[in-house]
């Protein structure tokens, strides 16, 4: 297990940071979050084709670059820091990973190269309106029909589900429960019977959709009834990535709040000179650094793929959930009245922190998972 980044990884990070500073300033974030699509096609083209970010962790056999989760985590950490509006987490972290873990060889060769090239965007639809992040919440049914399967049911909280060209969807054989009878299916976004609606999300930089499937034809991915394990692995890996995205955002907030405190004058001095502000800033640093360590460790553990990984992923997510939200609360507080205004950018990260707190399971959920999976 490595506790540091290589020179190449650090160089990758700084290239990415420059790119995102250029392409995703908050003015741009504000413009895109007001649109339904929620991303800029030209930026997507550039991050896919110029920087190859969409190919990072996809194996070379399927048109990817064959790097690991450490590199993927660096990418999402920087995106979280810049609050990049793009269907990256949905298409690359969730959908591509699900295909890597769950599809058979021919299907990977068919689906992954276009995703790796950024030519098509995919989404992973597994959560339903009950908002459960585990398989027990899956009620959508899949019944064999002709060459494929007929899908019926509703998926919700589907990240970028309204814009994706391809939907990877989790459904179960009627009459099954829990992990049994679950399969993944691939569905074209324009399939007959699929109705997609953009949900109004608090965090407008993260687009969520409700997908209603009425007798939609889907193609089975991988083995029938065998999706529980690959999905669980996909979620662990996505959770580790999300923790990294979150610490990126938390660090950005922490730095912004510090800059503001150093500049803001009250009572004839900067508010940074008050000890209460210094101690709060020190506490924020500690909270963010601890969460970063856990997130980095989780990404490295995802690459090692040892038995401890799933517990570590939950550990990192629970830690990041608390750290990001707490940092956001402090950041607003340090900004004072201006921090509560729409025009101040702090609110953008606050809302991302709020949605990230819950997305893929909140801290309580992951603490319980972590204890179940803990190995002494």
């Amino acid at each position, binding site marked *: 297990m490595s506790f540091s980044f290589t020179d190449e990884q650090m160089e990758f990070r700084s290239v990415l940071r420059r790119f995102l500073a250029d392409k995703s300033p908050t003015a741009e974030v504000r413009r895109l979050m007001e649109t339904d699509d929620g991303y800029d096609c030209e930026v997507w083209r550039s991050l896919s084709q110029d920087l190859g970010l969409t190919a990072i962790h996809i194996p070379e056999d399927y048109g990817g670059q064959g790097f690991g989760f450490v590199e993927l985590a660096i990418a999402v950490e920087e995106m979280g820091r810049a609050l990049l509006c793009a269907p990256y987490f949905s298409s690359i972290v969730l959908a591509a990973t699900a295909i890597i873990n769950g599809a058979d060889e021919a299907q990977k060769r068919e689906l992954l190269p276009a995703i790796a090239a950024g030519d098509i965007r995919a989404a992973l639809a597994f959560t339903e309106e009950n908002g459960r992040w585990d398989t027990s919440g899956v009620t959508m049914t899949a019944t064999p029909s002709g060459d494929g399967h007929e899908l019926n049911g509703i998926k919700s909280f589907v990240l970028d589900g309204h814009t994706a060209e391809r939907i990877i969807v989790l459904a179960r054989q009627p009459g099954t429960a829990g992990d049994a009878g679950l399969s993944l299916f691939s569905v074209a976004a324009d399939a007959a019977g699929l109705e997609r609606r953009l949900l109004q999300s608090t965090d407008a930089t993260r687009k969520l959709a409700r997908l209603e499937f009425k007798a939609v034809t889907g193609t089975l991915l991988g083995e029938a009834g065998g999706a529980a394990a690959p999905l669980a692995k996909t979620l662990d890996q996505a959770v580790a990535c999300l923790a990294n995205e979150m610490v990126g955002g938390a660090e950005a907030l922490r730095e912004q709040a510090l800059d503001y405190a150093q500049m803001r004058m009250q009572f004839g001095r900067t508010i940074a000179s008050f000890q209460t502000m*210094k101690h709060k800033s020190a506490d924020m640093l500690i909270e963010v650094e601890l969460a*970063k360590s*856990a997130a980095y460790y989780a990404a490295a553990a995802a690459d090692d793929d040892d038995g401890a990984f799933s517990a570590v992923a939950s*550990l990192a997510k629970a830690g990041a959930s608390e750290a990001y939200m707490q940092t956001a609360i402090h950041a607003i507080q340090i900004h004072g009245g201006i921090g509560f205004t729409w025009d101040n950018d702090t609110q953008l990260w606050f809302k991302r922190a709020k949605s990230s707190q819950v997305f893929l399971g909140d801290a309580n959920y992951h603490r319980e998972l972590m204890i179940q999976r803990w190995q002494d």
Partner: protein
Amino acid sequence: MSEHTEDTVRAEVRAWLAENWDPHLGLVEWRNKLADSGWGMPNWPPEWHGRGLPSELTRVVEAEFEAVGAIGVARAGIRMLAAATLLEHGSAMHKKKFLRRILTGEDTWCQLFSEPGSGSDLAGASTRADMQNGKWIINGQKVWTTSAHHAQWGLLLARTDWDLPKHRGLTYFLLDMTQDAVEVQPLRQMNHHASFNQVFFTDAVVDPDHMVEGLGDGWKIATTTLMHERRGADGLRRWEMGTDRPERAYVEEREELATAMAPYKWYPQRTGRVDLVIQRAKETGTYDDPTVRQEIAKLLILAKSAEWTARRAREAQVQGRNQGPEGSIGKLAASHVARLGNQVHTLITGADAMLTGEDSPLGGVIAEILVSTPAISIAGGTDEIQRNIISERVLGMPKEPRNDTDRPFRDVPRNTIS
């Protein structure tokens, strides 16, 4: 000197040990051989019991010692801080008189810095040293002095000039602890242990030769001692255990370590004992309680994140990279872990948390955790001082306004202690 490599050093020390190491020797006799040969402190200068080797080669020497079970120089306690300080600032007489007896373990030292009236504000020391008839006469009180009850010598920070600003009026002395004018009393802590002492000086005498460097250099030299204290905190633990082998040198080392390490017996408890939590929850039947599981998870997340943060910091150091902020937060993180550990142990222990000693679970260990964790956020720099340091040095925030550094120390408001 530069021609030394790992291989030549290894061969040299191996040959020397084969020739000289004998566990049947008395400990002092053996360590005198170490002092003569320089192999006890290979990175010290050759003229002072060392071999002038670069520091990175000392682990090669240590490995050879370990391989044959050879005992090293005396290290436990404050003596190595004294040695490091004297090497850097002591006169030739100081080095000649003290260094060898530190290495052989014949002399034990203590650090006379903290006072009842100056804890975090160490430079506010008001123990006084006055020159009378060619001797320094010491009056005042020190506190939190580990090993003072059996130390021969003390590193003393005392005020020699009350008209200068606080940092400039301090002088550094080497004080004979065995004189009658020095009274040592154990200081009992809230957890029953008495790991430290209070030391009272009533016209104690210091020979002028035993001043380190010049008048008013005390703060600078104390800073050296404290820097070594911080740096050496990890090293100490490596020397905690002797072996139970029967030969004379081992027996004598065991006795030495038992005395030196006695004050630290409860130290594991002050960390909050995260290692015991799951086992205790299972034993008490609370492991299935969802509330308890949440709290245990919070503790494990904090403890693991702190551990991994320390690893990040160490790795950056090893690679010679600029340490990021991760290097400065370990002490505060440890305080958080200890406090939460205390809470979780209380939650798990329930009514038994009201009991102590043999009536408490694990023969009193749990009770000791519950009343020992407050030490960790105070000792070696309080959490509040740590936050000041982090905010000023890492985050670049403004320094605290001061009203004590620009005027004579006698005009600075300070504690009136009884």
